[in-house]
């Protein structure tokens, strides 16, 4: 008998929250445009395979042999010839300005040394500012020099190895970035919609004094919280669906798992991010504080989630903390579901972790919310 009025007041709070959220058209469009833009840029921008490294050639020898060597250097797409310069200083210069990241210097007498079967000296200079790129450039350059018998230990060709390790990528064979970035984009987006918007929205009520007005009505605090959270949960679900469909249509992101597991994972994840939003709101007295506080959580969470850099390469003391980040579990669930076709038993560990985190965070935030009311 008491269920009906509670339900009614819940509906009323939700209606108020929705009309408030939808009143500002720009809010709605940013919430939709931002993730789509992010997905598109991520999809196209990220090409982790380092290639086309801008390279200058300084050919002081100017013989057919040296020209051949320079050409062979650009045979695969690792390096891209951007300029030819006359002397080593000019090559150095392009490295300094950042116009090139690698310089190949073929000294005078290269062809002569080659003809005399001496090991000719060719110098390759790599800009180390970007460590990842430098590593790739260096490996490729070393291999090239070894292969051409230049400047090696004795100038001799290395013995060809008989054993080989054939690497094979599974699940995302062509290592397409949208495919593994999509779960991360989703997680960030949901965190933004729920945690930041909820925290600031609740702080706004406090700031403008409308929270007191609601509190004098017979609505219970729990109902108030639920009513405030549910519209955003809905928003979140719509976003998840939109991103999944878009990712599938534009970037061929596969969907091997079951929709039920995705929905369950998203729901549990939203549970904890909303809890974080409420928690931050109870800790701050202005929208500015809420915003800064929310970012104070969102940014470290993004960093520690394994979205951008693998958790396994974080220092050992930091790795356990990533277990406390809901985003980490959500990304693992999504990656497993979308790409590997993992089922509910495969992902049990992550789902349980999300449930526990959600309950803990929500319990703390509701307790704090009640305390602030009395």
């Amino acid at each position, binding site marked *: 008998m008491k269920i009906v009025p509670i339900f009614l007041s819940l509906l009323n709070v939700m209606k108020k929250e929705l009309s408030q959220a939808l009143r500002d058209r720009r809010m709605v469009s940013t919430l939709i445009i931002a993730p789509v833009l992010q997905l598109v840029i991520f999809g196209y921008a990220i090409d982790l395979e380092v290639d086309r490294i801008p390279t200058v050639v300084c050919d002081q020898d100017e013989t057919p042999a040296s020209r051949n060597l320079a050409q062979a250097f650009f045979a695969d797409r690792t390096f891209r010839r951007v300029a030819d310069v006359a002397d080593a200083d000019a090559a150095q210069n392009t490295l300094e*300005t950042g116009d090139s990241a690698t310089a190949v210097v073929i000294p005078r007498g290269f062809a002569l040394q080659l003809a005399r079967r001496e090991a000719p000296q060719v110098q390759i200079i790599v800009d180390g500012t*970007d460590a990842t790129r430098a590593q790739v450039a*260096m490996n490729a350059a070393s291999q090239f020099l070894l292969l051409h018998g230049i400047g090696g230990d004795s100038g001799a060709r290395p013995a060809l190895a008989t054993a*080989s390790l054939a690497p094979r990528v599974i699940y995302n064979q062509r290592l397409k970035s949208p495919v593994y970035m999509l779960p991360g984009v989703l997680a960030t987006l949901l965190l933004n919609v729920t945690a930041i918007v909820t925290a600031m929205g609740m702080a706004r009520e406090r700031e403008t004094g409308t929270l007191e007005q609601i509190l004098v009505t017979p609505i219970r605090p729990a109902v108030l919280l639920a009513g405030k959270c549910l519209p955003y949960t809905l928003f979140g679900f719509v976003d998840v669906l939109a991103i999944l469909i878009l990712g599938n249509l534009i970037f061929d992101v596969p969907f091997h798992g079951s929709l039920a597991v995705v929905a369950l994972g998203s729901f549990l994840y939203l549970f904890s991010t909303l809890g974080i939003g409420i928690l931050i709101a109870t800790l701050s007295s202005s929208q500015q504080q809420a*915003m800064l506080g929310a970012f104070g959580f969102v*940014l470290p969470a993004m*960093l520690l989630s394994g979205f951008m850099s693998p958790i396994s390469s974080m220092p050992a003391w930091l790795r356990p903390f990533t277990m406390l980040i809901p985003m980490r579990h959500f990304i693992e669930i999504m990656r497993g579901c979308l790409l590997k076709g993992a089922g509910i038993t495969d992902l049990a560990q992550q789902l349980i972790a999300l449930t526990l985190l959600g309950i803990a965070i929500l319990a703390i935030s509701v307790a704090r919310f009640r305390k602030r009311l009395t």
Partner: protein
Amino acid sequence: MRRFFRRTKAIAHKEVLHIVRDARAVYLALGLPVVMLMLFGYGISQDVDHIPLAIVDQDRTPASRHLSTSLVAAGDFVREADLVSPDDVEAAFRRGSVKAVLVIPFGYQRNLARGAASQAQLLVDGSDGTTATIAMGDAAGIAQATASGRAVRASLSAGPRVRVRFNPAMVSTYNMVSGVIVLILSMVASLLTALTVSREWERGSMEQLFATPVTRAEIIIGKLIPYAGLGFVQTLLVLTLGSYMFELPIRGSLVTLFTCSTLFLLAMLGMGLLASVIAKSQLVAVQFAMLLSYMPVAMLSGFMFPIENMPWWLQGLSMAVPGRYYLTALRGVLLKGNGLHVVLGNVVALVIFAAAVLALAVRRFHRRLM
């Protein structure tokens, strides 16, 4: 002119009072960059290592054991599990407990002894692209070295005539920390100002401001000054911490460094003001500021993803991202010791950008209610 200064000063004074009154926000604004710098610098490493590896050794011979131990000994992989049959591989990947599996087939040693080609297989989980790319590159080198009996690291180390300049040890932290400085400044600066104008709209105090003779430009500039001060403190903090904690070298001149930083800061503060002027509510302003400043800097400045690998239209778009110029200038000054004449192009781009954004903020700031 004197009136202009007096009124601007009054607005700036009012804004300072706002900032000082909310001390907690100041702590957060100063604490956030520090936390991010620490996390990025210590926690995030582009050097992918400790990749969890499972081994399926069907050969069970000295040669196969040698291969698996040298793969692990090279330091990039951690032996997480030993699986009996290739059928278990799928499940291990699905659980996400391993990122790579080394499968050594039956007859590996025999083939090797006979001089025939013997193939072991490394399966890499492509759902994490960063790890996959690096794991594949490293594994190929290790296997080659193991087979030809050389030291495992040898093939990975530099050949005799390849020289790395500017960052010889190829410490990814330098790269990371300089990128993070750009990211932090872009975010914190634009978020700080994003709330200032929109707050006045929301609370209705904008009407009171309009009743006074202050002009739009005076409001914008007056609000800019205190936050520029706060932003400058953040810049100092981040640069100092960066160079102390991560031994980031400062090879160029400090004057050039701070010229570039200040220009970038102004551009980002202007972005926040622009978002604030358009949005009229704090919540929307924050979203706008993120969309205008933080996201482009994070994705298109060349910090995380190399610009030369992007398609042409994104490369063109990245020209409009001030973070790109600042990052180039910052890395040049810090790591290469570039002088002002080398980074001049970047400085000019930053000046143009900052001026354009601030002018646009004033233009879009309509002196009427709703």
